[in-house]
Structures are given as structure tokens and as C-alpha cells.
């Protein structure tokens, strides 16, 4: 399963998650894009779902750990969310890989796929994250969604509900953007790289280099 090109893909997608944070900071944009690598990994391995899930999960985990260690101490707690996003990406978003890569771009279909997959990914992400955010951090992490949580708390909602509602408000929007980014990167990726990923090496990754 973990051929050399797939190991490189995992590393690339993990590095992309980490590096994109610096791009967002340089461009002074009020968005996150911390899961683009996970979704992109699933798309690039659309031909092999289990490999796609495994690679996307590992890529997300690695970037989660790196960001946790160096930048944001809240990140490690969202490992389950990483797995959930990988699962949705493989089971749903990657199904439309061919359409997302079609030329010329089928605008309406592309928009619909991005919207639906983004919303579903966002909803799942919010549901999986809510208990973590609520019980570990009382609903407040370092992100701007904390104000949305606070608003719901002020209106009398209980903590878990407030966290969930906040997540359901913000996550779908954020994930639609992330699915859009991942889809655009997927469209642009050269075909020979995708072919390398689909190939199953005759020998394992460990012995191939000798």
C-alpha cells in the first residue's frame, strides 16, 4: 500500500497543510485551510480508496502533530476530526474525481460537487469536533468561531449544543473553501504524478530502493 510515490504524497500533503498556514498568513487572509492536504490526498488516490484513506489519514495526522508541536497546542485534539475528514473525502469527494478533473471545466457540476462535498465534510467535522472542543476547552479554542460559541452560550444554549451550533455555522463554509482549493489543486496536478500514485510497485517501499 505505501509505495514510494505514496510516501512522497503523504509527506507532500502534510507539508502542504503546514506550509499553507504560512501562505494564509502572508496573504493576510481570514481563513484556515489546514485540511487541504487531506482532501487533496484522497482525490489523488481516488483509484484506490483504502490507500486513499490510509494516506490521507497519515498525512493529516503528521501535519496535526507538527502544527501541535510548533504552532498551536489545540491541534492534536482534533486527530479524530482528521480521520473523519479523510473518511468523508474518500467516500464522497473522491467519487467525483473524474468530474473535478474534466476539461473543459463543467462549471455547474463542479460548483455543485464542491458545495455538497464541502458542506457534508463541514457537518461531519463539526459533529466530530464538538465534544472535543466542548469538554476539553469549554467551547473556546484559538479560532474566531469561539465568538459564535459565546453568542450561543449567551442565548442560553448548553455548552455542547453551543459548540455544535458554532461548528455547524462555521465549518461548512470553511470546508467548502478547502474542498474548492483541493479540487483546484487536483485539477492542476500533472497526470504522470497521478499515474505514479496509482501504480502498485512490485516490491515493497522498503526494498525498492536497494
Amino acid at each position, binding site marked *: 500500500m*505505501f509505495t*514510494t510515490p505514496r*510516501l*512522497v504524497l*503523504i*509527506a*507532500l500533503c*502534510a*507539508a*502542504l497543510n*503546514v*506550509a499553507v498556514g*504560512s*501562505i*494564509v498568513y*502572508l*496573504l*493576510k*487572509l481570514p481563513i484556515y*485551510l489546514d485540511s*487541504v492536504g487531506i482532501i487533496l490526498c484522497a482525490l489523488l488516490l481516488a483509484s484506490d480508496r483504502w490507500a486513499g484513506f490510509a494516506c490521507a489519514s*497519515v498525512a493529516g495526522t*503528521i501535519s496535526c502533530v*507538527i502544527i501541535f*508541536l510548533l*504552532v*498551536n*497546542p*489545540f491541534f*492534536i485534539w482534533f486527530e479524530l476530526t482528521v480521520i473523519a475528514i479523510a473518511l468523508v473525502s474518500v467516500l464522497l469527494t473522491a467519487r467525483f474525481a473524474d468530474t473535478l478533473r474534466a476539461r473543459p471545466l463543467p462549471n455547474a457540476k463542479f460548483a455543485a460537487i464542491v458545495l455538497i462535498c464541502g458542506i457534508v465534510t463541514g457537518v461531519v467535522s463539526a459533529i466530530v469536533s464538538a465534544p472535543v472542543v*466542548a469538554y*476539553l*476547552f*469549554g*467551547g*473556546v479554542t*484559538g479560532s474566531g468561531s*469561539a*465568538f459564535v*460559541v*459565546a453568542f450561543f*452560550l*449567551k442565548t442560553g444554549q*448548553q*455548552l455542547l449544543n453551543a459548540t455544535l451550533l458554532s461548528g455547524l455555522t462555521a465549518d461548512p463554509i470553511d470546508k467548502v473553501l478547502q474542498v*474548492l*482549493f483541493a479540487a*483546484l*489543486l487536483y485539477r*492542476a*496536478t*500533472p497526470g*504522470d*504524478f497521478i499515474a*505514479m500514485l496509482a501504480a502498485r510497485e512490485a516490491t515493497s*517501499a*522498503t526494498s*525498492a*530502493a*536497494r
Partner: protein
Amino acid sequence: MTPNGAALFVIVMLIGALAASGPLGFSLLYAVLVAFALVEVRAGTTTALTRSAVIVLPLAAFMAAVWIGFVGRSPAEIAAGASGTRAAAAAYVLTVCLRLFLIVAAIQLVLLRFVHLTPLQFICALRLPVTAKRLLALTLSLTETLRQAVDRARTALIAAGVITRRMSLRNLVHGWVLVQTVWLSAITIAVGRMRDKWPIEGTLGRLDDLFQRARTPSLAPGDAVWLSLGVGAALFGLGIG
């Protein structure tokens, strides 16, 4: 101390930070951390604590603004349906910040403890499967590749007028072009290596040889001391509640 022991120590402190809630529990954990800093890290302690403060203080200020300034009561009071007080909210924020600082400081102290090791030396010493070590080495290297590509591509795209130097609507609309350029340039480098360099050199095999040659003990006697202290403090904190 070995990198494996240090990694386990961070995990123990992380669990301990989550488990502790009262002053005594936190005191014990912080005492273990201070002892670790004084014995294992020494001169680097100031740097570690400064970096930890830089990471945690903005988060603390943000949480204080939300909980104390806006919500005005603690989660426990919300769950009980009580009107609550800002003092309780402040106590809650303090508890979360103590946890965060403990975790972040443990990580920073461990990183500084091994600052004399190169990244590959650190990875070599970890008790992990070879594939996992390869992945870590690849990820660290490619992260730097992407960072350099970001800087260079940003120069070119600003020169072309596609994005701007400062915050702008143009960046919101066209910023993804920078992401795409960085991604594609990194793929080109990776494909070139996989097609031309690695097969002819057997480069990944060289890395595996390096992992094999670095035969260090998984754990050292000193690790057991720190792990015991950390576990003890965490259990004590859990028991006290």
C-alpha cells in the same frame, strides 16, 4: 535522556495536564517540569519558557476576552443553569491556560533538550518503524521545500500583479494561485527525484542504512526517573481531582 523517553515524557505531561484540575495537581506537575528544566535543559530553559509564553499568551488573552469579557460565566455554571460570575469564568480560563502552558512548555523544553541533535539524528533515535521514520524525514524536508517555494513564487506573482504585498481583495480572489504554484513546483521536484535521482542512487536505501547504523538504546535509566515522576504527579493530580 533519549528522544524516546522525551516523547513519552511529553505524552505523560499531556495526560497529566488534562487530568489535573486543582492547585495541588498542577503544582506537582509544574514541579516535575521545573525539575526537568533545571536538570536536563538548564541554560535553554529561558528560551523554552519565552517561546511557550509567545504561543500561549495570545490564546490566553483571546480566551479571557471571550469567557470573562463576553460570556461572563464558567462552563460548569452554564451546565448548572446558574447565573454565574466573571470570577468563575476567570478561574476557568486560568485552569485551561495552566494546562496549555504545561503542555507547550514540556514540548519546548524537550525540543531544546535535543537542540544539539540534527533532525535526522533525532529521527534515527526514535523507536519507530522504518517507514514512519522515512515519512518524518520526507515531511520535514518537503516542508522546507514548500516554504522556499512560497517565498519565490510570491515574488514572481507580486511582480506579475496577480497578488499584492498587503491584504487585499485581490489576494482573497487570487491567493489560491500562489498555493497552486507552490504545489506544482514541489510536485515537479518530487517527480524528478523519484524518476531520476532516487532509483539510480538508491537514496532511500542510504537513509535506511543511516537508521540502521544509529543503534541507540530505546530508553535510558534517566528516562525511567522522569517518566515515574510525571506519572506519579499525574496520578496524584487525578486522585486529588
